[in-house]
């Protein structure tokens, strides 16, 4: 095979380019600030763990990590739980306005979150939800529920309707059928939907920082503290950046099989 060597080189270069920024972030996180600001170096001249230490001993940083993970997890659970019955209905039943409604749901994904920041701010202040992890978790449902409905509908439509009917004929009640027979069938779809909800909620900053101040400050809000009058704390920011990538990496590791199958099967 003549092209396989070229393929491999091309692939290696591609991966290299993808990895450069990540490597650079890791590189910076082990440098001291004077080191960073000095001359260009491809690896830390004076490797240090100081940046990470700062984060690990500061309770504010812990709290912000915990806040972020909490609202992301809550959001993922709510989004998937709400989207499942909706996606089932969109897939299995014909009702008046089903198609327009489906596309209207999707159009929610197209509006920038900034549009919703102000109304959410006002609403949550009024009902006392402001500055809580629930505020962010619920706000993120705005785009994650439609996303999950869209993904799950594709997977559900891939399951023959005859399986539902056979279960009804066998005598299953609907809840029992849904949990025992149906959920295992679309496990890959649930994995994919949960993954995307997690990711989008984790990387979203604007709503997360606008709807919180002190108690529920997310990691993004904490990072903005590293810009100060004294200048930028490059090393600290880089270490925080590395740490924020870790949960995403862990999630990908756990759902990688589901996602691979999901990408092959469904609507992503």
């Amino acid at each position, binding site marked *: 095979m003549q092209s396989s060597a070229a393929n491999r080189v091309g692939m290696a270069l591609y991966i290299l380019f993808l990895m450069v920024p990540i490597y650079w972030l890791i590189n910076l996180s082990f440098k001291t600030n004077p080191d960073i600001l000095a001359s260009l170096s491809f690896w830390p001249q004076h490797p240090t763990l100081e940046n990470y230490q700062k984060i690990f001993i500061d309770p504010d940083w812990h709290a912000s990590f915990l806040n972020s993970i909490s609202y992301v997890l809550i959001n993922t659970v709510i989004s998937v739980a709400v989207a499942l019955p909706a996606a089932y209905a969109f897939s299995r039943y014909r009702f008046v306005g089903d198609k327009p409604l489906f596309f209207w749901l999707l159009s929610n994904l197209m509006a920038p979150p900034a549009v919703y920041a102000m109304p959410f701010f006002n609403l949550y202040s009024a009902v006392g939800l402001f500055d809580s992890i629930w505020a962010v978790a619920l706000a993120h449902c705005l785009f994650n529920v439609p996303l999950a409905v869209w993904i799950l509908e594709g997977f559900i439509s891939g399951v*023959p309707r*005859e*399986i539902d*009917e*056979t*279960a*009804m*004929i*066998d*005598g*299953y*009640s609907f809840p*029992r059928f849904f949990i025992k*027979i149906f959920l*295992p*069938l679309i496990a890959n779809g649930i994995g994919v939907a949960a993954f995307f909800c997690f990711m989008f909620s984790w990387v979203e900053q604007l709503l997360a920082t606008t709807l919180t101040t002190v108690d529920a400050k997310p990691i993004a809000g904490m990072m903005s503290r590293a810009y100060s009058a004294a200048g930028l704390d490059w090393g600290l920011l880089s270490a925080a950046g590395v740490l924020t990538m870790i949960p995403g990496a862990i999630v990908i590791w756990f759902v990688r099989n589901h996602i691979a199958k999901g990408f092959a099967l469904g609507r992503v």
Partner: protein
Amino acid sequence: MSFVLDQISYRVGEETFIDNVSLRLEPGSMNVLLGPTLSGKTTLMRLMAGLDRPTAGKIIDNGVDITGVPVRKRSVAMVYQQFVNYPTLSVYENIASPLRVAGLPKAEIEARVGRAAALLRLEPMLKRTPAQLSGGQQQRTAIARALVKQAKLVLLDEPLANLDYKLREELREELPRIFAETGAILVYATTEPTEALLLRGQTATLWQGRVTQVGPSATAYREPDNIDAARVFSDPPLNEVSVTKAGAMATLESGRKVPAEGVLSGMPDGVYRLGFRADAVTIGHPQPGMLSFPGTVSVTEISGSESFVHVDTGLGTWVCLVEGVHQWEPGDRTEAQFDPGRAFVFGSQGQRVTAPGLAATA
């Protein structure tokens, strides 16, 4: 004890899927729904099962009106043409599923599943999942699930259509025997006349959502009540020609006059439509008593010991049966020999006037 469909119809919007169907099914009987694709076989089965609700009419089981009873409260089992099983469950759990839902004791479930698995030769596969089985085994799993439930009504919707012919023959033989013990009403949908004849029992021919005839399969084949039933129950398709009888002569569509012999001899004057199956026409030299039609060969289908030759006679394309394997090329000139004694005669409304071997009834 019988299961009765009383004038049921099923309409969605403007479209009529089932039109005023009445049927009476007896316990332990084999009932074949015979009809081409889209004739309403599956829709009718879904109505029988309770998956859909008829828009008019009643379904009566053992004297009780069950029209509105949801499917999961009914004693019904169904096998689809596609092999439908629960992909995430083992074959054992697939078969046991209706029994688990019914909450039967474990020993009873084990006994029933074991018996069904033995009957359908699935014992070595019980631990596998459906995806690890061949098509025939998957369908046998679906059949086993229908069997263990011991439902009163068992609906088989073209269950063998997706299997290879050897398996089909085997299972077709076995199916009625397997269910005989349960005393269930079997309903078997098929597009194939031969299958209806092989299954014996009672056949209902379906055409455009209407039942065109009900009766013992062989009788329905020999004496179709009307032209629609005859068309449904003919494979290869029924050959047809219109004639106008006047005295001792009959005029064909083409203007050709032939002696009104055979089935036409005793008929009053009038316009008739003759229907005849492939075995009433052959190809070759004119023989006494046969009507000869010159034509052109369009297709030859060889099926084992016989050949079906499609001949364009100018009165339509007729399918002729020839013994043995012959190869006519498209375009060959030939003569179709039609036996006027073996035609069905239908009146202008499509009703049967007479059939071969019957005295004229009109």
